[in-house]
């Protein structure tokens, strides 16, 4: 049977092919990336987009959670100070109510409580990075102002009832703030400012209406408990945030491993392939060298 006389040309084609393979394999080896074009592994390429998306979402959440942690800590410590101030106001009021003090002492207690009122007002107007943290959504205006024209004075809330949340990559919502009205004005009965303003009014003249003062003191006590309850919300958020950050970081680590596995060059396997290809190429070259020698031509035998 007749064979293709130009089979050596086909062998040269095979050499080209094995050289192309060598080139691809060595570029994978040197870059460490196993998938350099979409066509090489379409499924992995698509998967890679999704994995990177999740990894970056996790990364971004970690950064956001660092940002809000500061704000939550400031809110927490501010409310801690409020509780301290209110506790001392309570003990001042209690001592004024026991009927043993003269009028100037009572007036002094009144002015001390008034000082506490100012302090609590300033705490309620705390700002973090220029934003009032107890103003609901109206973070650019100072949320609490006190009108002293009447007696007792009235503290009004200028913020709103807006509550912000931070969403974790898996959709969990973490509360970021408690509107000031909820903390300091309560639901009418638990108003910190109401109780403090009333007490200031009670002691301002030096004569104490004991029944009213005692009832106002109790109101302050209730308000204090209410503030502590609201503080728990902030504490819960901090706990949730820590837990979410940890889980996101774990998740990110796993995803990064998965993404690396997906895209990274498998060095042992590539090295093996490379070595096989090299052997094949050497063999091809030898074969061509053998076949191509002129002494293999019948014409060369004719004399």
């Amino acid at each position, binding site marked *: 049977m*007749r*064979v*293709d*006389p*130009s*089979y050596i040309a*086909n062998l040269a084609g095979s050499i080209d092919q094995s050289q192309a393979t060598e080139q691809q394999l060595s570029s994978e080896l040197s870059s460490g990336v196993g*998938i*350099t*074009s*979409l*066509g*090489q592994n*379409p*499924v992995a*390429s*698509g*998967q*890679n*987009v*999704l994995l*990177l*998306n999740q*990894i*970056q*979402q996790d*990364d*971004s959440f970690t*950064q*956001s959670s660092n*940002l809000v942690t500061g*704000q939550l800590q400031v809110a927490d410590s501010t409310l801690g100070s409020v509780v301290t101030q209110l506790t001392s106001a309570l003990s001042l009021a209690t001592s004024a109510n026991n009927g043993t003090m003269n009028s100037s002492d009572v007036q002094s207690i009144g002015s001390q409580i008034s000082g506490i009122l100012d302090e609590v007002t300033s705490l309620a107007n705390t700002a973090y*990075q*220029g*934003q*009032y943290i107890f*103003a*609901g*959504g*109206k*973070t*650019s205006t100072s949320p609490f102002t006190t009108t002293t024209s009447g007696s007792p004075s009235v503290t009004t809330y200028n913020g*709103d009832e*807006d509550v*912000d*949340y*931070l*969403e974790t990559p898996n*959709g969990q919502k973490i509360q*970021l703030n408690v509107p000031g009205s909820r903390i300091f004005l309560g639901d009418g009965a638990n108003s910190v400012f109401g109780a403090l303003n009333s007490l200031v009014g009670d002691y301002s003249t030096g004569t104490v209406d004991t029944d009213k003062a005692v009832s106002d003191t109790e109101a302050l006590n209730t308000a204090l408990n209410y503030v502590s309850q609201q503080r728990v919300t902030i504490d819960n958020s901090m706990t949730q945030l820590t837990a979410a950050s940890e889980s996101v970081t774990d998740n*990110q680590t796993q995803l*990064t491993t998965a*993404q*690396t596995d997906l*895209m*990274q060059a498998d060095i042992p396997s590539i090295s093996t392939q490379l070595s096989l290809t090299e052997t094949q190429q050497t063999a091809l070259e030898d074969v061509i060298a053998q076949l191509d020698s002129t002494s293999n*031509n*019948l*014409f060369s035998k*004719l004399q």
Partner: protein
Amino acid sequence: MGTISSAFSITAGALDADQEALNIVANNVANANTPGYTREVPNWQENPPVLINGIANGDGVAQTGPTSVRDRVLTERLDQQQQLASASGTRLTALNTLQALFTPDSGSSSSTAGDIGSDLTGFFNSFSSLEANPTDNALRQQVLSSASTLASDVSNAASSLNSQRTALDEEASGVTSQVNALTSAIAQVNRQITTISPNADAGTLEDERQQDLSRLSQLIGINQITTENNGLSIATTGGQLLVSGSSSFQMTSGPVDGITHFFVGTVDATSQLAAGGGQLGGYLTARDQDIPSVLSSLDQLAYNVSTSVNALNNAGTDLDGNTGTTADPLNIFNQPTTAAGSAANMSVAMTDPNRVAAAALGKGTGDNSNATAMADLANQGIVDGQTPTDFYSSLVSDLGSTVSEVETENTAQNASVTQLQTQNNALSEVSLDDEASSMTTFERSYQAASQVFTMLNTVIGSAINLGESTAVT
């Protein structure tokens, strides 16, 4: 009864025939490396016997000329396969350029420039970050800068796609003149063949025609129909006649709706040529199918992301307390009117970061619920029922699958071309070893005939000298 003189004539004929055979060998050897040359073999024919007294006496041998060794079915199959292989090869080259725009991002968490997938994530993440502090200027600025990264990468990708399309269009229209040159050459050869050799293989003319046919097969998809008197008609695979006997019909090209269309006569054969094969088929498939498909996906992505984000931003409250109105819309991206062209025109309209509406309608500027809503767009089916990232991921794997499919197809077709080429070479190519062996055979045969001639000469000499003492040698 045969005579010595008739033996002389037989031997002389044999010498002639052997010389002609040697001539054929020489021609084969001379053309061993000529592309398209088909090896020829001598055609030996026994001369009709002479009947004398009822006895048939052999009358020697004659050469009836060389015959080219070819298999038309095989060459036609080779041509057909060549059309498919060169179509998929051309398409693959175009697809490789195309997929380079969407090289997989191997980076881990950091965003890589030019990667639309990372840009999308980065853009929606900027709203997640804004949730943490909706009034922060740096975070607002981040929203606009990630929006502009996304927009410029998408529009760059789209404009690269458009310029690749233009380049393919130009290359495709360049094919026309080559096709026309080949078809008129074939028509001319057809005429010569029909005149010179209407009933048998036309040898070198046939080689020339075959050579043109295989060149034509690399360019476009064709059907060959053998006609009377050894003629050949050629039609595109869509059925438009290009060559009929000695006349050829020009293929023309011209712009229709901004792209080049191809006509045979007055018929617009563009879509049939795209499906037909050859380089032109590959160019047209990439130009009219592969690139538009990726481009329309990008358009869809750009359109839906732009309009969804704009709609939400207009419905919220910005840092100055404003809400978008028809007269003064709070558009982050330039609002696209139609999906087509959205990718190429994607750009950021907003310059003032205060105009990012992080707060919901009627809420204070410290509210973040609209920022949350915009960040949530990343996980909503806003693009053709898929999330933007899922949609982009599908785009990437669809394109990858197409590339890989065409690559596999091309490898198989090339293997098939090689196989057919090997078969055809085995049959038709000049083998120097074969020629060496034939030459030796014919040389020996020529020597034998000369020897016979010498012997006959001696015999004739003896006959002339019968009864004489002085011998004629």
